[in-house]
């Protein structure tokens, strides 16, 4: 039956600047200072090494379950660096590196995964939400924050992170729809790392890209090579500027790969072929960026070496300090902190009860 086509107001697009071999598309190359480029590079390295050390700590039983980010360094860092400090970042749970860039202390990360609520503290110098475990639910907070920014006429932007799996949840849809309707200054960063635990993105949606989903909400969507930090950065900067100047939201899909485990409780050999991992190893975002910086004459192997050593020392210090903190913290009554602005009488009594029971437990353990 002949029908008339409906034209989309926003045509989704795709972008890549630095290819798998580290060759740059000169036309698209963003102009960035050497200092900034090196800072990005160092930060990616730091993210990878910290992640490795966390895995190590977990395997030794020194912290609990955590979700490694290896392979996604460009995707999360390239996006978050487009923000100003006064902007807000609303993460999911796999953005440790982006959070560190924003001022999250690595000590707090270790504390958190070590089971200490204290690690959830948000440092005073940044406007970010703490990590959110319930998949996709945080995207709505970013929209609310962005609506509030607009209400306050602040030239600020909220950027939220989520995975490919998150796009299946109703909250993602409601967030996208609100963002479109209210033209909220929000940037949606989908780290499409191909997997949601054991579910490949092909079983997550029938659409060919995540980016094209933006069209249904009446705003632009773009797919970028998520292992190409220049592409992620360029697209994010454009989206942040658009949001800041009142032109509304953008969805950015970063095509990347979860090189490691879903969390340390996961065994990916149950559901994916190592060949796939190998293919993605050859697309490593750090190797590629390093090649680009070396070709550009910005980075020497010595500098890399120097960074590696600095980072090693730094992380060692972090681990030591956090393990020391873990020894000092942990008073059980502190779990009654931060429940309400003021602890109601009922909870004051329960805190006493809890302490009394706990002390008796300890005594009995020591004597029994």
């Amino acid at each position: 039956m002949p029908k008339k086509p409906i034209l989309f107001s926003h045509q989704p697009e795709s972008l890549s600047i630095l290819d798998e071999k580290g060759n740059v598309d000169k036309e698209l190359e963003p102009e960035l200072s050497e200092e900034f480029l090196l800072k990005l590079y160092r930060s990616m390295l730091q993210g990878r090494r910290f992640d490795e050390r966390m895995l190590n700590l977990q395997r030794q039983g020194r912290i609990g379950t955590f979700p490694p980010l290896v392979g996604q360094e460009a995707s999360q860092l390239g996006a978050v660096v487009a923000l100003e400090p006064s902007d807000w970042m609303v993460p999911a749970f796999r953005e440790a590196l982006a959070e560190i860039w924003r001022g999250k202390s690595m000590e707090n990360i270790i504390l958190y995964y070590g089971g200490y609520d204290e690690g959830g503290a948000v440092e005073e110098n940044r406007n970010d939400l703490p990590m959110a475990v319930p998949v996709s639910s945080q995207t709505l907070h970013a929209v609310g924050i962005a609506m509030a920014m607009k209400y306050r006429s602040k030239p600020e932007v909220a950027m939220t992170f989520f995975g490919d799996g998150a796009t299946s949840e109703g909250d993602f849809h409601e967030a996208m729809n609100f963002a479109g309707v209210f033209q909220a200054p929000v940037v949606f960063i989908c780290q499409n790392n191909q997997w949601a635990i054991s579910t490949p993105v092909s079983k997550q949606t029938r659409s060919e890209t995540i980016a094209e989903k933006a069209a249904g909400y009446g705003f632009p969507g773009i797919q970028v090579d998520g292992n190409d930090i220049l592409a992620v950065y360029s697209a994010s900067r454009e989206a942040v500027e658009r949001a800041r100047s009142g032109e509304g939201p953008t969805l950015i899909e970063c095509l990347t790969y979860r090189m490691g485990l879903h969390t340390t409780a996961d065994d990916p050999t149950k559901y994916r072929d190592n060949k796939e991992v190998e293919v993605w190893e050859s697309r490593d975002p750090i190797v590629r960026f390093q090649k680009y910086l070396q070709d550009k004459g910005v980075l020497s192997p010595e500098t890399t070496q120097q960074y590696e050593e600095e980072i090693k020392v730094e992380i060692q210090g972090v681990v030591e300090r956090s393990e020391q903190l873990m020894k000092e913290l942990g008073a059980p009554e502190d779990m009654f902190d931060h429940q309400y602005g003021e602890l109601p009488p009922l909870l004051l009594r329960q805190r006493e009860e809890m302490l009394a029971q706990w002390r008796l437990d300890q005594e009995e353990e020591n004597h029994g």
Partner: protein
Amino acid sequence: MAKMTMVQALNLALRQEMEKDDRVILLGEDVGVDGGVFRVTDGLIDTFGDERVIDTPLAESGIVGAAIGMAVYGLRPVCEIQFSGFAYFNFHQLESHAARLRHRSQGRYHVPMVLRTPYGGGVRALEHHSESREVYYAHTPGLKMVIPSGPRNSRALMVSAIRDPDPVIFFEPKSLYRAFREEVPEEEETLPLGVPVKVREGRDITLVAYGAMIPPSLEAAEILKAEHGIETEVFDLLTISPLDDTLIAESVRKTGHAVVVHEAHRSFGPGAEIMARLMENVFYFLEAPVKRVTGYDIIYPLFAREKAYMPNRKRIVRAVRETLGS
């Protein structure tokens, strides 16, 4: 002082708080141009504009999730869920975030939002429009659960809820929206959250109720006195959770008897908690088991049968007399 319905009193509370504090903003389905399906937000969009009285798309999780973001940013959103029967669509946002962000961020953020929603039966409504499920919120740490029972206290509690630093679930007894009028002062009036009030003095038995069950409870108390010479002390919980049972326990120490009344289903209902507290705190003063007059543990019927489902003053009178063996 003007005589107002509960709808008018709530409207007054919202209007005055919005005038005083530009952090207060409203959002929800049909709260703006339409003034809310019960007209609680009537006229506010004309005064405050559509930036502060926001008609949202039809998405409860969207409304609550966005309100959480606004609250964290520093606003004081008051969101409306059109009927409490649709608040399950946003329950995960409340449980996972509104209730927890203060703790998760270790005090860096808090969520000073109010979720207003009409609840309860007795208005010949469609399915999903008559339930009374305050327990879901009362059993969720980090939330406060408030239910007013008349124009004046609904205004005072709403002001307190808006100023409260934590998320408050504010159930509005829809059968009382226009049931009666009360004097509501133009000047500011607040009521502390977390404290029940004694609404009638008595020495024979303690009656605990809240929301739309307050009028029949007070009527029952009248009948009990007039017809049976029984002096009933009546408490209006106002805050369901965090529940402070101090005054109620004190009363039962005096009366030795108690009856709890709620529309909510009986099993695992609010009455059970009151009974448990009385068991824990004044067991040795109890001269007879505490009784509950409640909704039954079934799906709320369509309105042809709602009268048989709902607690009424007769059932309350009977329960009191049985408890006293009178």
